[in-house]
């Protein structure tokens, strides 16, 4: 695979995906992000401290605060522990012995940018939750934000070694459903040994994924919903997917370059279930998309750059991701904009990035220790208070209120039962079919 240096390099620099935006705006938009995260940033010391005081749970103490200052080196072990920390540590250390044997050693994890909490103040490089993980379990984590794109991570990091039966060097990789399916079908994943909390603490909606019976291969890290993002000031309330085919918004509308999102929503609009999409139903959806493109209803197909286009007023209706719209939900009176994200009547798409263990990983035990640690509600909540996508862990909605009460009732992070009933996953495709469908989709959108 040496033939395409340029395309891959250019591709990863340029094609803007949901995560790329986070990356681009990480520096500039940090303050906005903090604000959007509901005081998770600068105010979190005060909030969590008072929450701890009020509820009398020492374990909920703002670990971010304590480790924020002393752990400036980012070395997990080096974060001088104030005495107040100890109760928390002992309290949540109990699942470890029961679940998995590993209580020492280290492991290496590859994931996306913006998927973990970040220390406050000078300590922006450290991750308080991970420091606490090491303290509680004795396992060191080498956390790398090296996944930019499923396909290029697969091509550059996994395909070569796994094809030759070698260890990839990664013990946990965080990849999207369809890539996990591909890896599982190739036999390139280890099964995750059930532990004290995983898969027990996994929300029910994830327990019925037909491609992963018994949750052997994939432990969800974060999910997101794909629905209607719109400027309510211009459109009024919207709840139907019909809007994406409405002449009224011609040229003011974007779809997503992710085939599974755009085709999924179109299929829902046409009355098909994306989870069991047949070739005929797929063809019908592609025909509808093609028509919308040639009628010039669709202005562009985007990664998450639709967010800026909406802010700039170029786009008023978009296929959008719940996590992206979080930051836009406060009405901007001066610009006369009021952004909303709606779960359509016909249903919405649910996608998930999952932790998985590549075949032959040297530190499988440590990786499983981490997975089970993450599936303790309190730990997932700490991560979630920063990340703000959909949390897959049971009880995190209760735990998160100790960090910020408002977050617990945020249905974009913790979808209600009736919202969950409307969420659909995209049918599992084998490699050939996936490639054929991607091909049909890219042709429909002019590529």
């Amino acid at each position, binding site marked *: *695979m*040496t*033939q*395409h*240096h340029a*395309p*891959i390099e*250019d*591709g990863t*620099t*340029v*094609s803007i995906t949901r995560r790329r935006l986070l990356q681009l705006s990480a520096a500039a938009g940090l303050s906005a992000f903090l604000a959007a995260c509901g005081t998770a940033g600068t105010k979190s010391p005060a909030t969590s401290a008072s929450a701890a005081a009020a509820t009398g749970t020492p374990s909920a103490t703002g670990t971010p605060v304590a480790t924020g200052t002393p752990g400036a080196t980012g070395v997990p072990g080096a974060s001088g522990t104030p005495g107040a920390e100890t109760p928390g540590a002992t309290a949540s250390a109990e699942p470890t012995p029961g679940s998995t044997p590993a209580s020492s050693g280290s492991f290496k994890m590859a994931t996306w940018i913006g998927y973990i909490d970040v220390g406050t103040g000078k300590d922006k490089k450290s991750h308080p939750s991970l420091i606490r993980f090491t303290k509680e379990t004795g396992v060191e984590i080498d956390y790398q934000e090296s996944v930019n*794109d499923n*396909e*290029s991570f697969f091509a550059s990091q996994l*395909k070569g070694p796994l094809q030759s039966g070698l260890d990839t060097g990664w013990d946990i990789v965080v990849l999207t459903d369809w890539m996990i399916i*591909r890896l599982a*079908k*190739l036999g390139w994943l280890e099964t995750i040994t059930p532990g004290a909390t995983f898969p027990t603490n996994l929300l029910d909606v994830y327990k019925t994924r037909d491609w992963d019976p018994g949750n052997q291969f994939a432990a969800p890290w974060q999910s997101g919903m794909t629905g209607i993002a719109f400027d309510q000031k211009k459109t009024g309330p919207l709840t139907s997917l019909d809007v994406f085919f409405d002449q009224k918004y011609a*040229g003011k509308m974007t779809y997503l*370059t992710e*085939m599974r999102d755009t085709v999924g929503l179109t299929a829902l609009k046409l009355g098909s279930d994306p989870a069991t999409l047949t070739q005929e139903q797929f063809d019908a959806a592609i025909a509808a998309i093609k028509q919308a*493109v040639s009628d*010039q209803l*669709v*202005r*562009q*197909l985007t990664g998450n*750059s639709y967010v*800026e*286009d909406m802010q*700039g*007023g*170029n786009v008023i209706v978009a296929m959008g991701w719940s996590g992206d719209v979080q930051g836009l939900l406060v009405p901007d009176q001066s610009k006369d904009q009021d952004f909303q994200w709606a779960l359509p009547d016909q249903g919405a798409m649910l996608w998930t990035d999952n932790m998985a263990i590549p075949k032959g990983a040297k530190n499988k035990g440590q990786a499983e220790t981490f997975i089970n640690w993450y599936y303790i509600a309190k730990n997932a909540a700490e991560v979630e208070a920063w990340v703000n996508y959909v949390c897959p862990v049971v009880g995190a909605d209760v735990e998160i209120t100790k960090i910020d009460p408002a977050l617990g009732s945020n249905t974009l992070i913790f979808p209600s039962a009736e919202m969950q009933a409307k969420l659909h996953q995209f049918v599992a495709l*084998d*490699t*050939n079919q996936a*490639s054929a469908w*991607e*091909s049909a989709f*890219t042709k429909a*959108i*002019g*590529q």
Partner: protein
Amino acid sequence: MSGILRRHPTAVAYALLAPGLFYLLVFYLIPTVQMFLVSLWTGNLEDGYSLTFNFSIYPDALSQYWGQFVRSVVYGGGATVLTFLLGFPLAYFIAFRGGRYKNLLLFLVIAPFFTSFLLRTLSWKLILSDDGLVLAPLKTLGLVPDDFRILATPVAVIAGITYNFLPFMTLPLYVALEKIPPSLLEAAEDLYASNWQRFRRVTLPLALPGVIAGSLLTFIPAVGDYVNAELLGSPQSQMIGNVIQARFLAVGDYPTGSALSFILMAAILIGVLIYARIVGTEELLGGASA
């Protein structure tokens, strides 16, 4: 040692060429051959690929994506003409009227390069946006209809390419114009040439190497560009670069992606040869070696 070098001057030349040749061999020639072989593969990621010398992929790819090929040449060619129309007066002014500000003016031409290509293109999005700097005043004055837009049209794509490649045209033109001895221009005047004749018969022919170098430097990357089409274009204005990117990264169809890259490369090469033949290889080579 120095004796050997003196006795074999060609050996010195080859020794000096070696690093460059080696670089081209490893990073250009080998990947090109590899890409050509990939284009003749059949198979898929799951079952693996095998080299089947499937040459029919070339006519197939060409007929499927003919529209995007033509569009790329039109956009790239249009942008090259525009950069010339903008760049020539600019280079002329700097070369002949720049005076002591020459270096400053040249610096200003290059200055945008201090910002990344991507950011420059994204900022065009802001400038051209539907209610942005350009269109908001025009809409307020009622000069254009409310639903008029530039973004997500071919105009935006060509404008973006033109802007991004302007220095590639301006600098070679400047170098060529700057070299023209003032005495030749004076001689033309002494021989009763009008301003237009002087420009047409003296300045322009002497600037030709710069025109050729500039137009090649602009046209070749412009045809293969996909950033401008992706950020500023619509589904109706996707270029061949976008198709190649989608084939590699979205579809995982390496053979077609490679075949398209190869066709693009060959088409540009043939185009350049024809261009050089028409305009004259002497100027091309003369411009390069001078």
